[in-house]
């Protein structure tokens, strides 16, 4: 079973300790939410796991499906990332096809079966095959993020780091994208790290929650426990800060 | 490191690079410049004493007799003492004296013309940008073409039309030769009269660049949120234009001063040639035509130092008008 273990991860930028001794484990079939305000260091954690930023100290250990450690050059076959801003994470110069075909080619697909595989990837994220020819500027935010998800799935990765995958999207399509991620996670038995500042979606879409504040994890546990009955004062303040119309009018007509 | 210190350090590095370049160039070139120089000197009837030869060798290379490092330090030592050698074309005058005579002409001409062109260009650019969509937009392609005109050719045209044709300005020179140089009103008046056309050439050729750059930045600045806020605040148009839009739009023009100054100085050298202006550009050409290597190198150094100095001043000024640079920790 694919497992990614993060041990005592630390990153310093000059004097600032952006990430300070963070440890956790991602296992197949589970979603871990990393919750925190901007500047808490949660995106730096994502970038370290994606091998975009080198940790100052600490370890990232990846075990493949057979339980054996994965060699460094094969790391990217197993770990992929979804970025926050779908308007920035797709290259405006290239077609959707390029964005999906490249990772396929890099991870062992022959030229011959790439085209068919691109279409299969598009279908998995509920996009029609004709999207392959389009360029990013012809797509809506939600469509772009679906392409970004497909790109992350292309190498056949089993660990997905999703860095605020819906915060730049319009509110009415956010849940749709999150549901898609959740469905794929269950179908493919993925290990997902869901990074967000939104406590509510963290609660609904994850099994375990880690609350991060100033580079440290201040509270962790099952999603329901941490967010509904927070113990740490910072988590409590976060939970209290979210708008709560039900406190004003009682339970609403819809929920 | 503070902003000012960092800038100072950068210009010291640039100065060192220029001085070293000046040392390296003659040694990399084919032929033996010292022999050419000595031959020239003999033609002019100068005495070729061993001391003179040694001085030139320090500047231009001994052809492998002394170690390069030894030559380099001797060269730096001479520079530190302000000793740039003896000019051949103006034998037996010292290079430093030749430069000293010519430099004020160029500094005043190029300095005033550049300042005028910058102020006019930036001011006009701000107005053209602010009044976008009016007839003023036609100025943009016009100045675009103007900025591509070679300085010296414009100078030729101006002389042909305004001096030869209409007789409004003198054909060439820096002052009326019948006058003695000095601080008399008559002499200064004559110098201004003679300098008008070269200055006009520089202003016309360089104004387009400032205007266009400022106009484009102005247009960008006008769609910034702080200009929208200023409008929402009900401020007067003139206040929004000057304090909000232009104040921000001018920053890149100031930051890009270094690049532009290089062009202006280059253009001025050739312009001086057209007007036979008694400045440093004409002297540089005179030096090149006469294989006066010592003078050539001295002038290159002086021009470089002047440009570096001007840029340093502008950079320090930039620190004053944009508070953000003082807190930033990026390199130059």
């Amino acid at each position, binding site marked *: 079973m694919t497992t990614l273990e993060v041990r005592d991860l630390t990153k310093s930028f000059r004097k600032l300790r952006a990430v300070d001794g963070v440890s956790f484990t991602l296992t197949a079939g589970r979603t871990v939410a990393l919750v925190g305000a901007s500047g808490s260091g949660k995106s730096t954690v994502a970038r370290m796991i994606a091998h975009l930023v080198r940790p100052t100290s600490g370890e990232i250990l990846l075990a493949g499906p057979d339980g054996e450690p994965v060699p460094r050059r094969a790391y990217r076959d197993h770990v992929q990332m979804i970025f926050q801003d779908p308007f920035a994470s797709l290259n405006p110069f290239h077609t959707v096809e390029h964005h999906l075909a490249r990772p396929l080619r890099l991870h062992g697909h022959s030229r011959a079966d790439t085209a068919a595989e691109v279409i299969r990837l598009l279908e998995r994220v509920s996009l029609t095959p004709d999207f392959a020819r389009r360029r990013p500027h012809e797509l809506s935010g939600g469509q772009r993020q679906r392409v970004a998800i497909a790109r992350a799935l292309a190498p056949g990765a089993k660990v997905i780091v999703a860095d605020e995958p819906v915060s730049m999207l319009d509110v009415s399509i956010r849940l749709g994208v999150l549901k898609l991620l959740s469905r794929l996670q269950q179908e493919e038995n993925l290990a997902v790290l869901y990074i967000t500042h939104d406590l*509510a979606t963290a609660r609904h879409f994850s099994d375990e929650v880690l609350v991060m504040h100033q580079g440290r994890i201040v509270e962790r546990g099952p999603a329901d426990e941490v967010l509904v009955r927070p113990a740490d004062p910072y988590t409590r303040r976060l939970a209290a800060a979210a708008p709560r*119309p039900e406190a004003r009018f009682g339970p609403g007509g819809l*929920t | 490191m503070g902003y000012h210190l960092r800038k100072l350090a950068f210009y010291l590095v640039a100065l060192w690079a220029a001085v070293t370049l000046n040392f390296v160039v003659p040694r990399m070139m084919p032929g033996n410049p010292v022999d050419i120089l000595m031959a020239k000197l003999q033609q002019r009837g100068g005495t070729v004493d061993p001391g003179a030869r040694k001085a030139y060798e320090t500047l231009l290379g001994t052809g492998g007799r002394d170690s390069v490092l030894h030559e380099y330090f001797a060269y730096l030592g001479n520079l530190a003492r302000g000793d740039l050698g003896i000019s051949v074309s103006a034998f037996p005058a010292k290079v430093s004296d030749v430069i000293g005579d010519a430099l004020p002409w160029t500094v005043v001409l190029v300095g005033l013309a550049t300042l005028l062109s910058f102020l006019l260009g930036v001011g006009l650019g701000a107005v053209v940008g602010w009044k976008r969509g009016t007839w003023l937009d036609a100025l943009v392609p016009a100045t675009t073409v103007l900025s591509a005109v070679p300085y010296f050719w414009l100078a*030729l045209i101006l002389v042909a039309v305004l001096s030869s044709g209409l007789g409004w300005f003198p054909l060439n020179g820096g002052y009326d030769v019948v006058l003695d140089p000095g601080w008399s009103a008559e002499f200064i008046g004559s110098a201004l009269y003679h300098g008008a056309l070269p200055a006009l050439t520089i202003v016309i050729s360089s104004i387009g660049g400032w205007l266009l750059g400022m106009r484009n930045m102005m247009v960008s600045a006008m769609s910034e949120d702080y200009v*929208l806020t200023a409008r929402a605040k*009900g401020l007067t148009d003139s206040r929004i234009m000057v304090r909000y839009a232009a104040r921000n739009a001018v920053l890149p023009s100031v930051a890009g001063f270094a690049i532009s100054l*290089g062009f202006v100085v*280059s253009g001025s050298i050739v312009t001086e040639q057209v007007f036979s202006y008694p400045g440093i550009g004409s002297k540089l050409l005179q*030096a090149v035509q006469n294989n006066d290597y010592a003078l050539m190198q001295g002038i290159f150094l002086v021009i470089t130092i002047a440009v570096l100095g001007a840029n340093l001043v502008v950079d320090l000024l930039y620190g004053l008008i944009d508070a953000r640079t003082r807190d930033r920790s990026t390199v130059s």
Partner: protein
Amino acid sequence: MTFSGKLGAGLGLAGFIVLFGLLGPLLTGDPATIRDVGLTAPGGEHLLGTTLTGQDVLAQLAHATRGSLWIGVLVGVMATVLSGIFGIAGAYAGGVVDEAFSLFSNVMLVIPGLPLVIVVAGFVPADRRGTWTIALVLAITGWAAAARVLRAQTLSLRNRDYVAAARVSGERTWRVICVEILPNLLPVLASQFVFAVVLAILSEAGLSFLGLGAANSSTLGTMLYYAQNGFALQREAWWWFVPPGLVIALFGGALALINFSIDEIVNPRLRDRARRERDVVAIDAEIAPAEPGAVLTVRNLNVVYQAATPVHAVKDVSLTLRRGEILGLAGESGCGKTTLAYAINRLHRPPAEVTSGSVRFSDVDVLALGPEKLREFRWVKLSMVFQGAMNSLNPVTPIRAQLQDVLRTHRPDMSTLDRNARCAEVLRLVGVDPVRLGAYPHELSGGMRQRVMIAMALLLDPQVMIMDEPTTALDVLVQREILNEIKRLRDELGFAVIFITHDLPLLLELSDRIAVMRDGEVVEHATAEEIYLRPQHPYTRQLLASFPSLTGEAGALTR
């Protein structure tokens, strides 16, 4: 001139000159043939006359154009390659390499080019100065400015997420640079190449004019050199010295026009735009009477973006803002909520136009105000707080100046002392220490800047404040503090608020009444309680369902 007009004129002119340089020499005969006719004016056999030695000027011009273009292209290619190496590669590598390359480029940039070229040319004997030597020297002294531009551009591109995404996919470095970064640099690269060509032609012309050009070469500069030495000016032989310069000027101008168009492609804001005469096309002559207690009444307001295909951004919107109430305006991006807010204060920019409707502020017909009256109305009666507080404050002046110019403009009689006191007072109201008056915007945190914006909006005690996503860019905790601050100030000072956001739960908690907008229309307009408990419109329901509750039953959404 229009956008495509500039590009067309530039391409046409440049193309013509290039063709002249390529084909002209084949048609015009030998430029060196000496004839016994001496200096002759244009006409007859010699379209552009002859030189002092009877050589045909047109033939010389054709050959010279070819020579200058050749030098220009040579130098352009070499300089662009150099600037690419030092600008792009350095910036992508980052770290020490970037610092070193950048320092080197900057040093090369501040050392004046032409004097250096003249010195180098002076050391090389005339017979050894070939075209390639001159081109090389010009390229070496001319690449630095482009490298600086390319570096800045590359630095911004290399931090884009799509570059990170390519790296995460496992792309090799050279592929990331060549396939992901370089195509996006093409417009800049093209513009730098064009610039390098023009610069090279100009520099070479200057050099040749001084007699320091390549030996045996024939360029526009050498032509001018011979014209000058043949006293063309004194002999009034304008046909000799005008054409070569004109070719340089026209070619440079043409390339500059092309460059200008490239700039406009990269930065659409620079494109020509017709100036709008009026922001309001038609207003309803008769204004519907306001409800009692209403401070701001919007009736059937329509705003249209007059593009090639007009976009109807605000459709028939009617709103009533009562004294002291908070009216929430909810909607997603592109629904027209910001356009509506700007139109109320007539801040909408062209090509947006108010095509019909009315905006009434107490007794004032806002759409009918003349420019000066409108200016006096703004901020006194109605102030605004915008989303990006970083960008809403002028970055180059301290916040004191930005608070004070409101008072200077609208309260010209106020003494300096009173002005300072008022500025300090409003800052205290929003919980900012008045010592911060001397601070520049970049020295304040995001939350602090938004507080300063709110303080600024309070300066003149307006009756209405429009807040456009004032807390969206802020952290949850800071957002909570600012919201509490707004509620407290509203209760203390009694102004009315139009609060615009996509965050419906926030509005449900904060507002008295809510208008939900979609596609330019208000689809539902009711009290917060009604919207929350009994949403009528399907879109309102959809929006409400988009925000899962933190305390509700878990797992309901994922299944």
